[in-house]
């Protein structure tokens, strides 16, 4: 009986929306924008991915086709890797355009990834791009507001609310019906984007997408939009007029979706300032100078290393060592310098993570931030994906450089070192680079703040509706009495 009443009210609400030509027009607009966004983003992502794969293959071929070379020469020759976008980047590109896409790996130093897309576009990119994620997280809430702001207040204004109550529908059933009805309209608006995304992800055209990630996205946006539906019906039920409900909801939307992200970023930057690039490079240089220079054999660090080796092999000079001393210096120098640079880099990333954490806390104020955070995490396009690329590229770099140094130590004689060459067959034995995206479980586990913020976003309006239930009849009476 209760369910039937709620469903009847829901049908009533859907019917009211269908009659409103303005809302129907907006529905069409939102759906069209969503579908255009999905198709556009898919095209963009596919062409980028295709190019990246082509050039990565080319770089790998160049590596294998090197002639006979001295291993230290190869250390300086280096290797270029490209950041692969996650398959779901077409849905939510996250920070992709704002982070570097290519990284040059060479001996002695950690380069930073550069060539971020935003650097090469114009300032217009600051307005954001119409991505499927943006349609769902920015535009759909506004559509929900327009479709639902009058759901309860219009019934009250027309006096039909009292009729509904008189016919035996309880306030809870009416509110549930309004939520269901508005929710159904919202779902209808979101469905095409969702289906197109699932179809593209399922077709495998953008790479393998796990069903878990797609389900995760569905859950995030489902919860986010459900919160908006609940809030809209709540505002409609406790505001005296439809007009003031609409004004309130639009103000809330502007505050949460437009102002809060920028405010959050600036608060994060103020609480945890990062060093300037010049300062950072200077820090790294200072730290490096403390250990010494592997190219300088007179350096105290390397002198003590030499004494240790001479003692270990019980010989009088480095020429008599059974291993190539030049290679040993290079290997140990690389180990030390990599450790220092990695430490500095970790500090920097830690600073950025602290900023990101402030934004996660801001998620409690703005569900838009929480949903965006989770959406990037599930799509694999968040800051941690960029950091994973950097860390993996660094690990790959270190591995390759030390393999080359080991070859230098074992295959090249110390005498007349630089005149010798290593056979080209060795180059094919080196591993190739592939980005491994951070696992979904780990990224979500690190986002408990955003997860709880999103849960609160549903729970609080739900609680509010529970309280408004008691007032619903009274507000109606007060109004008709006035």
């Amino acid at each position, binding site marked *: 009986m209760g369910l039937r009443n709620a469903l009847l009210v829901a049908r009533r609400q859907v019917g009211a929306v269908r009659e409103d030509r303005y809302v129907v027009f907006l529905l069409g607009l939102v759906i069209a924008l969503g579908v255009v966004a999905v198709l556009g983003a898919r095209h963009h992502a596919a062409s980028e991915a295709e190019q990246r794969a082509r050039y990565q293959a080319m770089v790998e071929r160049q590596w294998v086709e090197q002639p006979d070379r001295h291993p230290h020469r190869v250390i300086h020759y280096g290797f270029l890797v490209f950041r692969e976008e996650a398959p779901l980047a077409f849905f939510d590109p996250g920070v992709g355009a704002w982070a570097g896409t290519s990284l040059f790996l060479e001996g002695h130093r950690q380069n930073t990834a550069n060539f971020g897309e935003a650097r090469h576009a114009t300032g217009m990119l600051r307005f*954001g*791009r119409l991505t499927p994620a943006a349609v769902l997280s920015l535009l759909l809430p506004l559509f929900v507001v327009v479709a639902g702001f009058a759901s309860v207040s219009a019934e009250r204004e027309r006096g039909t609310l009292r009729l509904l109550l008189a016919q035996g529908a309880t306030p809870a059933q009416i509110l549930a019906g309004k939520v269901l009805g508005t929710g159904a309209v919202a779902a209808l608006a979101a469905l095409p984007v969702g289906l197109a995304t699932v179809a593209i992800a399922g077709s495998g055209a953008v790479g393998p997408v796990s069903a878990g990630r797609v389900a995760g996205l569905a859950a995030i946006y489902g919860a986010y939009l459900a919160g908006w539906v609940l809030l809209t019906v709540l505002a409609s039920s406790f505001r005296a007029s439809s007009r003031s409900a609409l004004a309130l909801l639009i103000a809330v939307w502007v505050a949460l979706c437009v102002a809060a992200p920028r405010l959050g970023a*600036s608060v994060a930057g103020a609480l945890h300032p990062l060093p300037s690039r010049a300062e950072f490079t200077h820090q790294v240089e200072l730290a490096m100078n403390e250990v010494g220079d592997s190219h300088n054999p007179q350096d105290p660090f390397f002198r003590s290393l030499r004494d240790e080796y001479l003692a270990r092999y019980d010989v009088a000079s480095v020429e008599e060592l059974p291993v190539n001393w030049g290679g040993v210096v290079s290997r140990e120098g690389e180990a030390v310098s990599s450790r220092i640079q990695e430490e500095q880099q970790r500090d920097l990333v830690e600073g950025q993570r602290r900023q990101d954490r402030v934004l996660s806390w801001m998620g409690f104020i703005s569900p838009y931030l929480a949903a965006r955070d989770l959406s990037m995490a599930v799509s694999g396009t968040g800051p941690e994906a960029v950091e994973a690329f950097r860390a993996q590229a660094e690990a790959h770099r270190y591995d390759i450089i030390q393999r080359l140094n080991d070859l230098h130590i074992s295959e090249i004689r110390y005498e007349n070192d630089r005149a010798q060459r290593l056979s080209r067959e060795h180059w094919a034995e080196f591993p190739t680079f592939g980005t491994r995206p951070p696992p979904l479980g780990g990224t979500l586990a690190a986002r408990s703040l955003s997860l709880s913020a999103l849960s609160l976003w549903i729970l609080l309006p739900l609680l509010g509706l529970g309280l408004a239930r008691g007032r619903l009849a009274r507000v109606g009476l007060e109004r008709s009495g006035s």
Partner: protein
Amino acid sequence: MTARTVIRNEWRLLMADRPLRIALGLFALLLVYALANGVVWTRFQESTVEVARAGNVERALAIEQELTDIENGAEPASPFSDPRLPNVLGGRRGRHTAVLEPGPLTALAVGQSDLLPYYYDVNIYTNESSFHQNGEVESPLNLMVGRFDLAFVIVYLLPLLVLALSFNVLSEEREQGTLALTLSQPVSARGVVAAKLAFRALLVVGMVLAVSLAGILVAGDFGAPGRVLLWCAAVVAYALFWFVLAAWVNSLRRSSAWNATVLVGAWLVLVVVLPAAINIAAGLLHPLPSRVQMVTAQREASNEAVNQRSELLARYLEDHPEMAEGVVADEPGLGALAWAATDAVNRRLEEVTAEHDARRAEQIALVRRYRFLSPALLAQEVLIDAAGTGDARFAAFQSQVRTFAERWRDFFVPAILASEQMDASVLSDVPQFRLADEASADVVRRAGVPLAVLIGLLGLASAGAGVGLGRVRGAD
């Protein structure tokens, strides 16, 4: 009924409306916060620039000291960083940091200055790939979101305040039944709406300009009156555009609720949806040339060059006979050989980059045409250009650094080729970077185009509103 009566009346009405009062107060707070944010950013940039300059002086002093010591018989601290070697003095050790001072009004609009580099280390190895270094070590998330600066408050939030103040400027009078009464006086609907909106515009624009000027006082300089004027003109034109749009919608004689919905819809389309859609459409219709391709091409170029060192030296000396003095062609010094390879790499890089840049410039010119569709994009462009944080100023800086790097090379390379050593006497002649910052007149000329279009849009909306209001009668 005179304009003064209208205005006095309006002030009382406005102050009686609590939500509006709150909105105005909140807006003022946001303006001040945004300005504070911009000032912090300017100070950060200024201190970074200061540190870079001090670094230049420090390095020069240390080198001078060591060179004097060597002249007096001391040994160089390390044979690998002997400052007498031109590839050390002109290399990483003796590098010169070229800096771009923050734009005169950076505190008002951060613009692209958090994304694009404002300092480059220049040495003889500086080449096209040096220009690909990133800007600050900023978290990509913060870059994506952008800063909460005055330009953001003006472009995004100001229109909403304007609309909240004026969506019912005429419709409310009609709904309360006072319109007929008002229009029975010897005033036109046009005059009433103009007076009401002029008062509101004065209030809003006055607030924004006051905060802007305060910002310039605190963290900028009035030395660039052209820029300040440009900024003020953009603020006024953009704010008026939204006021006039509201007047136009009011002249359509619909209900206040309808006006509000349509105006918020217009804001959504012009400020949020259209720019975002333009960005995605531009990417599809005019894709920028592949960056990956360029990086790979650069890489290939350097490989080729390194593989053919000795041929390259011969060719280099043929191309630069003035450099050949002192180089024994049969037995080139190691430094000369290395330099020949470096030079060849640079030339190839320049070719590859020039081709990429030319294509990119073409595409960007196409993309930028679309900005005429949205007043928000136009306003943003004028504002950041006036502030000195637009793309153009950074591009000019980069090209000056490029020229400077050439001068730097020309200074040191002959000595490298001749395997000569340098001494303290050359230090005073080492090139120094001096920025020739764009003149206010250039900025005005460049930003004049979008500003003119913005004013054109304003005129269009005014004409519409004027015609519409002319049709309003008291009996409506």
